[in-house]
């Protein structure tokens, strides 16, 4: 490649969802030949991870969809040829637009839009709501449960460690800072710097992931028991070691709130405010009137004629049952290890210490606990996420140096934080940015569900997306029981692969219940093969995304500058192929609801009354609409990026923005009174619907409690767990069609092979390199190649990433590795009714193929 003929274009990586790095694309004769990190992009250090580097091969996928396609084979299923007929765009619109019109007239909720494309949320959401339809934001159904805690604890959707100031990093089923989590590139450097500085890393995980391999200590744990160990940590930190941050508990949590025998707050009769026992005054006073040093955390008091105790004392007493001696046999973690790691963690937090950054004295809590998908994707997910993320609250590290920081919760102080009448912090993130998630506090009013996601039955969940595939798979009469008396007439999906979300076996059947399925595809995949019409979509290397890292999504935390990314096409899309959002605008225009979309766009993006407000009847392009938000929100514009030939706009961040913890009002929960309060309301709706037999409300308890998963006890010879973890070279199913990523994946002994502990393998008579079947209790099985290792919990067999593709379209990536999702059972009784998490504990047995 002679460099003279090469044109360089600055853009932003989008191989995973993170939009983490500024990149330079090298283009020769219109062909993308290389992508590298942009050395001038300071926020990401000019570096680039393995995934983004492999971008040049993606837009040229041999199975790229270049023309609209219409199904001619009525039989749908995995491996069945849809017998595509190429049609023109006009023909495609003639098929789709009447379906939209019909659906909108009949019942607009019959439209479901499913997408996992962060840069377009600001448009796709108003599109669907403007239509009157419903939304499903997710990609896969497994991750993201900790977001339920994030708005409360971190006042943001995402959180990350403040690696720069921390000394102890506890990765709980997570690989943060190891090129697989949010901000892979940025965090990797910061994590490496922290370790070089002497920070200790401990990883609790059934699998020796690269993070665990590199850590100072790997603590293997039995899958599904993290909640038990987490509660044991709470117990040790509070009762045994007394290493909790008492001042933080008193001033920033509801720990001191007085609770009566009914487990609800005791309130001031006049102001209705929850009460705190004032030790100086010797009486209960509204929470906002008691000085921190006079706040009681323990004791029993008589208030308003009832016996009341601070929530913290109830919590401390409740936690005593979770001693290491009890928890050790549940988790298989030795008693000594539990005590030692917990003590190290608690001591590292240096409760009470401060640090001066840029002249400002701030609390310094240099210990963090970051939880991942594995510990939290369970039947009792809501308790698990608040327990594991709550460990940070116990040591008071929320949004302070050395602790856990939300992604941009306090940008320009105008995305401010307010305090409600009960004294709790309200993050404005969710309402402000409508990115598919809601605040988890206060509880919303439970109602008969309107959406397939049953969000109305989940009043304290940030999203309940997992119920949608479950509901879709039910026959109409079953579905009616949940109040869903309508069908999904139009299902639109893009940047997501719903056919393989959970169990491909069961999702394939579920999607058959959709009346009309429109899929936007860059390349043929499992979902496209189930669609009625497939429309071509431009690849990210070919498109503009003026808001490439939407706020609260991917923005480095801590003492760095703010940066806003702008994605521009590095190469031209194939002829006739455009950004899916432009197609959606075209569809809205043709179906006659574009003014509603524009109106919703103005409302949700707060353009009303601003110079950028859209005219309702005018048709704008996706880039124009994005530009309006850019100008209104950041004071930057598409023109600015183009004129400066850059992809990044930076702004200085001050200390209050970087570490908002001490500067924002409001408390967070360690005692979940609002769960208890909303429980009867949920029960009422459940009773009205008559679904008490399948919809329990047992988890609505104010104190976090360990309850085993259904898969906790082995049965019928299914005595192993199939576990799944991320790997650096893959993200989502699409990466399994990239030959470069696949080639790299093949170079690891444990990524495409199936790690089994040597002793377990010996028990089953399996040798290294043997072909094996992994069969789950749900009757599904998948083939793998055994890799004997010491680096996995002996009760587990490991699978990585998405695994092998199941699409007819592409040969590439099909014969790679076991697809964990094919083992999973999609069952309502395995789901957390509070937040829709499906239990990821899959019991399996293995045998030679």
């Amino acid at each position, binding site marked *: 490649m002679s460099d003279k003929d090469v044109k360089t274009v600055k853009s932003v990586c989008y191989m995973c969802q993170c939009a983490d790095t500024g990149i330079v694309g090298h283009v020769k004769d219109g062909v993308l030949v290389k992508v*590298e990190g942009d050395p001038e992009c300071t926020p990401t250090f*000019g570096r680039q991870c*393995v995934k983004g580097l492999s971008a040049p091969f993606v837009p*040229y996928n041999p199975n790229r969809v270049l023309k609209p396609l219409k199904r001619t084979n009525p039989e749908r299923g995995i491996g069945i040829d849809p017998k595509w007929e190429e049609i023109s765009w006009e023909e495609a619109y003639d098929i789709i637009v009447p379906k939209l019109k019909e659906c909108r007239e009949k019942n607009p909720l019959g439209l479901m839009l499913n997408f996992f494309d962060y840069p377009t949320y600001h448009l796709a959401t108003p599109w669907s709501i403007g239509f009157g339809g419903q939304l499903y934001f997710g990609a896969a159904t497994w991750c993201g449960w900790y977001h339920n805690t994030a708005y409360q604890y971190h006042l943001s959707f995402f959180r990350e460690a403040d690696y720069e100031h921390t000394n102890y990093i506890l990765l709980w089923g997570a690989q943060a800072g190891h090129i697989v989590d949010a901000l892979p590139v940025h965090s990797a450097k910061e994590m490496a710097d922290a370790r070089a500085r002497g920070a200790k890393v401990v990883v609790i995980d059934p699998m020796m992931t690269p993070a665990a*391999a590199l850590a100072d200590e*790997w603590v293997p744990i039995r899958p599904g028991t993290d909640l038990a160990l987490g509660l044991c940590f709470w117990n040790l930190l509070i009762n045994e070691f007394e290493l909790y941050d008492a001042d933080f508990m008193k001033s920033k949590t509801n720990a001191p709130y007085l609770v009566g025998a009914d487990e609800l707050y005791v309130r001031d009769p006049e102001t209705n405010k929850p009460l705190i026992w004032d030790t100086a005054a010797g009486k209960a006073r509204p929470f906002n009137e008691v000085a921190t040093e006079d706040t009681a955390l323990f004791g029993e008091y008589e208030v308003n004629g009832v016996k009341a105790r601070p929530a913290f004392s109830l919590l401390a007493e409740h936690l005593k049952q979770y001693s290491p001696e009890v928890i050790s046999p549940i988790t298989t973690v030795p008693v000594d290890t539990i005590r030692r790691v917990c003590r190290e963690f608690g001591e590292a937090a240096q409760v009470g210490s401060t640090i001066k950054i840029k002249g400002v004295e701030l609390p310094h809590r240099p210990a963090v606990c970051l939880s991942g998908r594995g510990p939290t994707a369970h039947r009792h997910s809501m308790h698990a996420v608040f327990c594991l993320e709550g460990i940070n609250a116990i040591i008071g590290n929320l949004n302070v140096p050395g602790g856990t920081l939300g992604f941009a919760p306090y940008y320009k102080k105008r995305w401010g934080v307010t305090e409600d009448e009960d004294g709790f912090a309200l993050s404005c993130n969710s309402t402000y940015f409508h990115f598919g998630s809601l605040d988890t506090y206060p509880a919303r009013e439970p109602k008969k569900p309107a959406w397939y996601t049953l969000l109305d039955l989940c009043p304290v969940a940030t999203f309940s997306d997992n119920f949608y595939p479950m509901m879709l798979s039910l026959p109409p009469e079953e579905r009616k029981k949940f109040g869903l008396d309508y069908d999904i007439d139009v299902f639109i999906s893009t940047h997501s692969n719903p056919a393989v979300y959970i169990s491909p076996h069961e999702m394939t059947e579920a999607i058959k219940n959709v009346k009309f399925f429109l899929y936007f595809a860059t390349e043929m995949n499992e979902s496209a093969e189930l669609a009625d019409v497939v429309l071509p979509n431009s690849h990210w290397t070919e498109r503009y995304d003026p808001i490439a890292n939407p706020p609260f999504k991917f923005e480095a935390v801590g003492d760095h500058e703010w940066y806003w990314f702008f994605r521009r096409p590095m190469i031209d899309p194939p002829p006739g192929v455009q950004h899916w959002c432009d197609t959606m605008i075209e569809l809205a225009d043709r179906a006659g609801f574009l003014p509603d979309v524009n109106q919703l766009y103005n409302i949700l993006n707060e353009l009303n009354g601003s110079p950028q407000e859209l005219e309702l009847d005018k048709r704008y392009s996706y880039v124009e609409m994005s530009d309006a938000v850019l100008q209104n929100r950041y004071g930057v514009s598409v023109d600015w990026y183009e004129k400066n030939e850059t992809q990044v706009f930076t702004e200085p961040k001050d200390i209050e923005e970087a570490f908002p913890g001490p500067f924002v009002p409001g408390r967070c929960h360690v005692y979940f009174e609002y769960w208890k309060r909303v429980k009867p309301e949920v029960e009422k709706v459940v009773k009205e619907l008559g679904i008490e037999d399948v919809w329990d409300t047992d988890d609505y308890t104010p104190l976090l409690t360990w309850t085993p998963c259904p898969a906790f006890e082995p049965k019928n010879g299914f005595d192993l767990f199939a576990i799944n973890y991320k790997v650096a070279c893959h993200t989502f199913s699409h990466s399994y069609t990239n030959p470069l990523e696949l080639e790299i994946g093949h170079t690891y002994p444990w990524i495409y092979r199936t790690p089994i502990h040597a002793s377990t393998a010996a028990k089953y008579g399996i040798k290294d390199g043997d072909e094996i079947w992994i069969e789950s209790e749900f009757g599904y099985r998948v083939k793998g190649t055994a890799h004997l290792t010491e680096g996995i919990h002996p009760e587990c067999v490991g699978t990585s990433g998405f695994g092998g593709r199941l699409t007819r379209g592409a040969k*590439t990536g099909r014969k790679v590795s076991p697809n964990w999702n094919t083992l999973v059972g999609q069952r309502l009784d395995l789901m957390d009714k509070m937040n829709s998490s499906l239990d990821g504990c899959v019991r399996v047995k293995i045998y030679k193929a």
Partner: protein
Amino acid sequence: MTKWGMTIDLRRCMGCQSCTMACKTKNGTPPGIFYRRVVEKEFGTFPNVHRTYVPMNCMHCDDPPCVAACPAGVFSKRPDGIVDVDSSKCYGARVCRIVCPYDAIAFIDEIVPYGEKGYLPPEKYWYEKFESGTAVKCDFCIDRLEEGLDPACVKTCPSEALKFGDLEDPDSEVSKLIRSRGGQTLNPELGTRPNVYYLT
């Protein structure tokens, strides 16, 4: 006089193979041809197990066995320490692969496409400079060095495990790291005197 060398920090390497990918896409090597790679090794027994990732590329030895053994003069030691490779001289004796203690030399048997239906558009540009039946290897990205840039692998490493610089200059980052961290070469007993140092 400049003497180029590299340090690889095994405490920073996360085994993500971004360096491998950056190398592949920068050099545009055909399927199966790697100038560098990350080798992993597991130690210990459960639960006291470790896995170490060892990124490896050409060690640009001071006593390079490939230069001595190659009958065709494909390899040469440059004054700046780089062991250069001129594949157009290679006739395929493959003795370089026998004598290199670090598996640094790849041999292109045949150039096949990555694409399942033939060459993908970038591949057409990638493979222009390769011919089948020749040996290839890392040259520390000489073309990038001439432009004042670090090698592609060093530049991309997300955890900054790789550093590159002048070993003769006592103030260069690599020299300082080798001194302060006690940099070691891989398999020094083989007497090849590598210029890639590992930090543990």
